[in-house]
């Protein structure tokens, strides 16, 4: 890695170590990736998070962040306004989303009454982000399988930065939750999770476990504790 004897090339921080904004992470031939930046030949962190690197690419895993939509994300949002051309949806993001009429139905209605028949203000929807580039508000669609109005179940909100942990490696955590609780879970990338169970007690139990995952997202042996908690809670309420 050493370029010449004059340039110091080194990583100053260990993997998984807590770093703060402006902390010097490395110097030399490294590439700044997620949440890091380069100033001259030095790489600094720009947030509070956990340091990580792959090869010479450095990044910091955030502990807290707001939801920024990406094309293809599944989100759960609330309809907050409706107009003749579509709806405005609150997706717990700095950017409010638009659901155009054409993305809700194949036959656009001609009168207002019919628009209200599809979605009303206050409805919760499962939707997919189909366009977003930060210059305009994100566009959603509900014209796909399993999308559209949520009619039952309970909703729990967690920090969007904890969603990857809730899903786990190749979906390990979320599959464990589904298998142990026999509930149907929909995870919105914006930190909103829809829980649908057979009984309200089971729903409460699953919500508690999800909140536990959020709280202990960065601790060791979480999977074991989750399955134990689930067995304890769900086992008593079949």
């Amino acid at each position, binding site marked *: 890695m050493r370029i010449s004897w004059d340039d110091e090339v080194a990583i100053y921080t*260990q*993997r*998984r*170590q*807590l770093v*703060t*904004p*402006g*902390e*010097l992470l490395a110097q030399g031939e490294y590439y700044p990736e997620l*949440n890091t*930046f380069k*100033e001259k030949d030095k790489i*600094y962190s*720009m*947030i*509070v998070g*956990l340091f990580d690197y792959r090869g010479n690419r450095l990044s910091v*895993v*955030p*502990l*807290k*962040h*707001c939801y*920024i939509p990406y094309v*293809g*994300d599944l989100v759960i949002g609330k309809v907050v306004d409706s107009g003749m051309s579509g709806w405005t949806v609150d997706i717990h993001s*700095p*950017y*409010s989303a638009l659901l155009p009429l054409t993305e809700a139905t194949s036959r656009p209605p001609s009168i207002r009454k019919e628009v209200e028949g599809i979605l009303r203000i206050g409805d919760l929807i499962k939707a997919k982000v189909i366009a977003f580039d*930060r*210059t305009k508000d994100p566009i959603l669609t509900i014209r796909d399988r399993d999308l559209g109005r949520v009619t039952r179940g309970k909703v729990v909100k967690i920090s969007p*930065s904890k969603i*990857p*942990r809730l*899903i*786990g*490696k*190749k*979906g*390990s*955590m*979320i599959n464990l939750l589904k298998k142990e609780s026999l509930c149907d879970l929909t995870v919105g*990338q914006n930190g909103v999770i829809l829980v649908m169970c057979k009984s309200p007690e089971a729903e409460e139990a699953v919500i508690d476990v999800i909140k536990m995952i959020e709280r202990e*997202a*960065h*601790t*060791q042996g*979480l999977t074991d504790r989750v399955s134990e908690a689930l067995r304890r809670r769900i086992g008593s309420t079949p």
Partner: protein
Amino acid sequence: MIKGYPERLIDENGLRLDGRRPDELRPIKLEIGVLGNADGSAYIEQGKNKILVGVYGPREIHPKHAELPNRAVLRCRYRMAPFSTEERKNPAPSRREIEISKVIREALEPAVMSEYYPRTVIDIFIEALQCDGGTRCAGIVAASLALADAGIPMRDLVSSCSAGKAGGEIILDLFDLEDKYGDADMPVALMVNLNMITLLQMDGKLNPMEFEKAFTMAMEGCRKIRGLQVEALKKRYQGIVEREGTSEFDEEGT
């Protein structure tokens, strides 16, 4: 509380009215994440100063016409509580508060990577609950911690500290009486790791040599404060991370 006009600001042993050495900071206590409803928050006690900061955002901007197409707007409000001073302060925003809001915003703006959240706003509310001189500096220190707590990307933490002259000596971190009856007060805000100054004000008189000395002293104070800021952040988050270096974080799946 020391009242009235002090006979002299530095005693025969070279100590100040509150018993500090000329280059000594007031004791600082920092807490992070004190407000449940704000996205990020911090509380600072610096001597008798008590300041609470809440950060909201990035969030949707209202009024909509104030949005910027290329970056987030930073809004900052510094406010003194009516009970923060010896004499009751009129709760209406004063000329001074409006000015301090502006200079604090400008001290934080170079640090915040606002280009990551175009068309949004980041609101910073600084409430001075008890004031004893140097509240703008303490406000900046707490505000940059609250921003970090909110998860907003920053180039560096902003550390701030004042230096000045009282009783013929160059002193660090002036408190109310030294500010009022002293000869000069100079608040400095610094991004320590990047070595960039984001705030430099002065009132009173200093000759170039005194200025040099006071400025170096203020920079040194900022460095010490940065250490405390980092310590406070680590204390707040280490508990969540638990045992550094061993915690797992199975990142995968969307």
